[in-house]
């Protein structure tokens, strides 16, 4: 049931992406951006219903699988995009964010929902369910959007600086605007991600008996956390531009990559599994 509802939401995102891309291709269609935002809003609402249904169906166990995690991540990204659209309507952000949302959602549509072997006992830890997982994915969602904006920055910088005034030059917003948006998203993501790291350590203490065990997942998270923390700090020293955008993307790719990698090779990390 929840998968069906999720497919409806995905279809809405796909149409939204179509509108955003149409507006990107022909900036004259200003209304397409409004339509895109409205469709993302509708998709977001239906997506929320799908997540609620899935919680009823699988008792929250879904979010312990990579599939469920991606479903949640995509939902939060859609929410983040709506936030950015309401914040300051920067053209072309939707054209980059919606395909990214679809990319995250796509594997979730075909994976088997739920979890074989029942609900892990650690789900009992309220902290894990209520704080750690939501904040981890919300932080990640902001990093994802920041990476989209960073990609826009890199494309635009290449045209502006390289004096090669191609199709992106006229369509993408000013470098300063992209830079600012990227830094804001990174800062926001970092604050929320920090919450996930702290609660994650607490959960590790309860479930594994220690805050820090050199678990590969813990190591990657710490690296990503340090990376984004450094970016937030560097911003105050005036650091910005191309390298900032690149590092924003590196952090996100590292985090998502580790999820996929550890998901494909079970046994490497105890994170997200039955910890007992």
């Amino acid at each position: 049931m929840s998968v069906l509802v999720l497919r409806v939401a995905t279809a809405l995102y796909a149409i939204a992406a179509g509108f955003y891309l149409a507006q990107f291709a022909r900036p004259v269609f200003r209304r397409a951006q409004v339509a895109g935002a409205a469709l993302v809003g509708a998709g977001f609402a239906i997506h929320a219903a799908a997540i609620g249904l899935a919680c009823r169906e699988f008792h929250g166990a879904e979010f312990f699988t990579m599939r469920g995690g991606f479903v949640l991540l995509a939902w939060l990204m859609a929410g983040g995009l709506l936030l950015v659209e309401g914040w300051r309507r920067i053209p072309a952000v939707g054209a980059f964010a919606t395909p990214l949302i679809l990319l995250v959602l796509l594997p979730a549509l075909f994976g088997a929902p739920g979890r074989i072997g029942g609900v892990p006992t650690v789900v009992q830890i309220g902290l894990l369910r209520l704080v750690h997982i939501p904040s981890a994915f919300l932080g990640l969602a902001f990093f994802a959007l920041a990476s989209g904006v960073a990609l826009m920055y890199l494309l635009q910088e290449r045209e502006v600086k390289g004096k090669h005034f191609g199709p992106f030059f006229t369509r993408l917003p000013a470098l300063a605007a992209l830079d600012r948006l990227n830094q804001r998203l990174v800062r926001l993501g970092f604050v929320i991600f920090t919450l996930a790291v702290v609660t994650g350590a607490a959960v590790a203490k309860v479930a594994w008996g220690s805050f820090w065990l050199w678990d590969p997942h813990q190591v990657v998270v710490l690296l990503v956390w340090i990376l984004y923390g450094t970016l937030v700090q560097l911003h105050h020293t005036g650091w910005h531009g191309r390298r900032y955008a690149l590092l924003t993307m590196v952090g996100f790719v590292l985090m998502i990559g580790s999820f996929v990698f550890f998901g494909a090779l079970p046994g490497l990390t105890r994170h997200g599994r039955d910890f007992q």
Partner: protein
Amino acid sequence: MSGLEVHLVGLSHRSAPIAVRERVAFTGEALRAALERLKLEDGVAEAMVLSTCNRVEVYVVAESAEPARRFFVDRAAEAAAHLYAHVGREAARHFFRVAASLDSMVLGEPQILGQVKEAYGVASAVQAAGPALSRLCNRAFATAKRVRSETRIAHGAGSVSQVAVELVEKIFGQLQGRSILLVGAGKMGALSAKALAALGADQVLVTNRSPERAEELARRVGGSARPWSSLAELLVQADVVLVSTSAPGYVIDVAQVVQAMKARRQRSLCFIDLAVPRNVEPRCADLPNVFAYDMDDLEKMVRATHDARADEALRAEAIVEAELMAFHRERETRAALPVLARLRRQAEEIASAEVGRTLETLAGRIDERSRRSIEAMARAIVNKLLHGPTARLKEAVASGDRSLPGAAAALFGIETEELGPAVEGGERAPAPGEAIRSEPVPAVVEDRVAALSQGGKG
């Protein structure tokens, strides 16, 4: 039709060299006087003169183009060889294309529409433009607006200073809180500084080897002069640096910029080098967050814009053709206007009088919304009743049938002698006092009555 047509005679950058254009061009008072004279000529019903640095065109509503042609030849005999002339539909097409900037030297340039509007304004002011030219102009303005919003013909930067503005905009967005530095007294530099200041820069700093020139230049661009010796500090302060000195070598080199970037804490810095030979060391562009452009880059961009606009021109031409077709269809159906206008006016007068009476008796007992719905209902009844007859009358006129309008006039008790010949009826400029009534007639109805009651007086 009584043989009156729109005739256009003119010359432009395409047909005549500047030596000829400047002899026939004129502005201000001279233009008014010339229009007055033209209007008085035999057989000229309406006239308008469009005079810009790239074209001089005379539009007359007359039986022949002769008065317009004489207008040129009287001023300069050699103009005769460079004139082009169009009539009717072709004249309208030419005018639409001119207004939409499809005939401009720089395709899509924004000034021409303003100039056309001004020409029409002057012609209206001296009462040389009548209903036919009014309709032509309004349609041309609408066409130009469509072309502008539906194609990318006005997109991009068409000149070097526009390119500079566009580049800076793509780097910094708006320039609030930022400063512009102008180095050197080159003409392009001053021009671009002014264009950039319009982006909202906090201040324009000016420096030059000679302090007097700096002061003078600062006055001209509305900035403040700084001594040449403080260039290093200025590079820290400014965000956009326009360089156009006549120095034979680099005025700003990489070492200086590296130094400045450190002091700026890596805030982006943009150089626009308008000097040939170049004044900014090209390698500066390799530094992170430093953007540097030279004259070649800017000109390359201008050319790219022109190429892109040429592609868009095809789409723009299609819009012009569509508007032209609509314009002519309207003109043809307008031939049926006299009878229709009387018919409609009669119906609307009755409706508005009845509405007024009803509202008077209901005064105070109904609210604004009910009042408006009563008015809307009356309008709707008039429209629905007249819709069929209107359509059939238009059809009849379009197919050359003149008996139906007469029959309609007789049937509805419209006096035929008032109808006049079926020529261009006025739509704009209602006669003063024509539509003043005591009842609260809805504005829409009032406008339409005023507009249509002018029909048949051409």
